[in-house]
């Protein structure tokens, strides 16, 4: 029974929340995504004039009523300074997800059966940078007592548990850009194996800071050729692509044991039916030849899922818009789906919001579920001329109505870590 998500206990999604460059709130973000809008623009969070990459996807600032972010509407001012921005964004998305699920544990047993697993790729980088500068200036004694707890990655899970009194497993994932999928998959397994009945799970990231952007620039990972046309910079599979566009945000889901959700009459978005992982054992940043790790992660997700590739209609690709990775992933998906590739829609929603690193997999999981709910594949923006032809439809420029019942979402991270997750329409 181990290694299977469908026995002994099935896991469903009963709540979702998002903060991303297209805004705050699932309904608002999805509407903008289907309108082929882009959330990429010039960097406002710091002065980026000295960097080769000066654009990013920032969560827009403004009132909640307009689908934007005003932190004061979400987190008491006194608590904001105890959280790096990555925790603040997680709190926003977690609040939406928990409220959306309607889950309010009344008894101590219920609280003990409700856990949190929110990960981040990098954590409190801006906070670490600010405090390092104080130390460098000889002001070591001026460090805030909140410096360490506001930078620690597991404090996103910690703060959510404190806010809601969720006393079950409190855990966190750190696997670079695969974090979001790993958090969802691992949390689902905790439920499947009986460690919890409900898990608040997902990923969060806020690395649009001087040191974060400079670091990824140094690794030659970011797009630098579209500073004057930011909305055209993230262009997965297009032949003009030149690197990924940094994004920030959080995607959080409430995962729940199927019978638990039914018993309380919860609305069920989808079921998590498969989850697969692999390692490349190849290179710290580059994907392995033929993206064999991606193929093996997808294959592992199908194992014990009860579905086969012919039953999948949509793939949310990792598709970061880097010259090398996009076509290698395409090749791996072609190998996975074989002749059924021609009935697939595969898009990269990073084309609209950039790469949210540790939050990417969770946010894209939300999009995959919405694709099932509304039977529509969100578009790949800026895909005018693919660098590589394929039988797989990559949903260029406009969304497509499709009979989507099962969706697969991929995430791959530095260090050669790969994860894939399968969602199916609610049982």
């Amino acid at each position, binding site marked *: 029974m181990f290694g299977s998500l469908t026995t002994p206990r099935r896991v469903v999604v009963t709540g979702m929340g998002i903060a991303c460059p297209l805004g705050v709130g699932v309904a608002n973000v999805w509407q903008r995504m289907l309108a082929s809008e882009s959330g990429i623009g010039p960097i406002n969070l710091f002065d980026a004039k000295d960097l080769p990459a000066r654009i990013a996807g920032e969560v827009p600032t403004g009132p909640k009523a307009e689908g934007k972010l005003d932190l004061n509407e979400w987190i*008491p*001012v*006194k*608590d904001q300074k*105890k959280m790096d921005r990555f925790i603040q964004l997680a709190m926003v998305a977690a609040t939406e997800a928990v409220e959306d699920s309607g889950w309010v544990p009344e008894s101590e047993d219920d609280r003990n059966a409700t856990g949190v697993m929110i990960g981040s790729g990098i954590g409190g980088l801006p906070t670490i940078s600010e405090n390092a500068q104080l130390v460098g200036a000889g002001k070591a004694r*001026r460090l*805030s*007592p*909140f410096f360490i*707890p506001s930078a620690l990655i597991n404090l996103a899970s910690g703060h959510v548990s404190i806010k809601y009194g969720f006393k079950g497993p409190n855990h966190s994932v750190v696997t670079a850009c695969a974090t979001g999928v790993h958090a969802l998959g691992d949390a689902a397994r905790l439920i499947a194996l009986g460690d919890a009945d409900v898990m608040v799970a997902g990923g969060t990231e806020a690395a649009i800071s001087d040191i974060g952007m400079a670091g990824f620039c140094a690794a030659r990972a970011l797009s630098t050729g579209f500073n004057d046309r930011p909305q055209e910079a993230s262009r997965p599979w297009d032949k003009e692509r030149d690197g990924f566009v940094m994004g920030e945000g959080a995607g959080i889901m409430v995962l729940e044991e199927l019978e638990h959700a039914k018993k309380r009459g919860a609305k069920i978005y989808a079921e998590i039916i498969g989850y697969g992982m692999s390692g490349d054992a190849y290179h710290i940043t580059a994907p392995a030849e033929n993206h064999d790790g991606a193929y093996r992660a997808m294959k592992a997700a199908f194992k014990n899922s009860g579905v086969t590739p012919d039953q999948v209609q949509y793939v949310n690709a990792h598709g970061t818009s880097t010259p090398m990775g996009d076509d290698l992933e395409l090749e791996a998906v072609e190998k996975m789906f074989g002749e059924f590739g021609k009935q697939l829609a595969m898009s990269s929603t990073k084309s609209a919001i950039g790469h949210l690193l540790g939050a990417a997999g969770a946010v894209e999981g939300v999009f995959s579920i919405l694709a099932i709910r509304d039977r529509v594949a969100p578009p790949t923006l800026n895909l005018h001329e693919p660098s590589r032809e394929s039988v797989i439809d990559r949903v260029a420029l406009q969304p497509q109505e499709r009979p989507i019942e099962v969706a697969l979402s991929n995430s791959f991270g530095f260090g050669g870590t790969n994860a894939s997750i399968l969602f199916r329409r609610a049982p």
Partner: protein
Amino acid sequence: MSDTAEKVKKIVVEHLGVEEAKVTSEASFIDDLGADSLDTVELVMAFEEAFGVEIPDDAAEKITTVKDAIDYIEAQKAA
């Protein structure tokens, strides 16, 4: 109210996010104003910054109420 008292209370209001009326001289940071031990460390740092004084750890531990803070700072300034 002395300038020091006014400034101390303003800092407390800002850092602990409490209503001004609650910040009486007798108010305890932890028991009355909802602070935890890390909040009090940060408060003392804010006092040091605002008044240009140094408050060593052993003295900081004894500052538990608004009045304690005002008295300590005024004594330092007089010295």
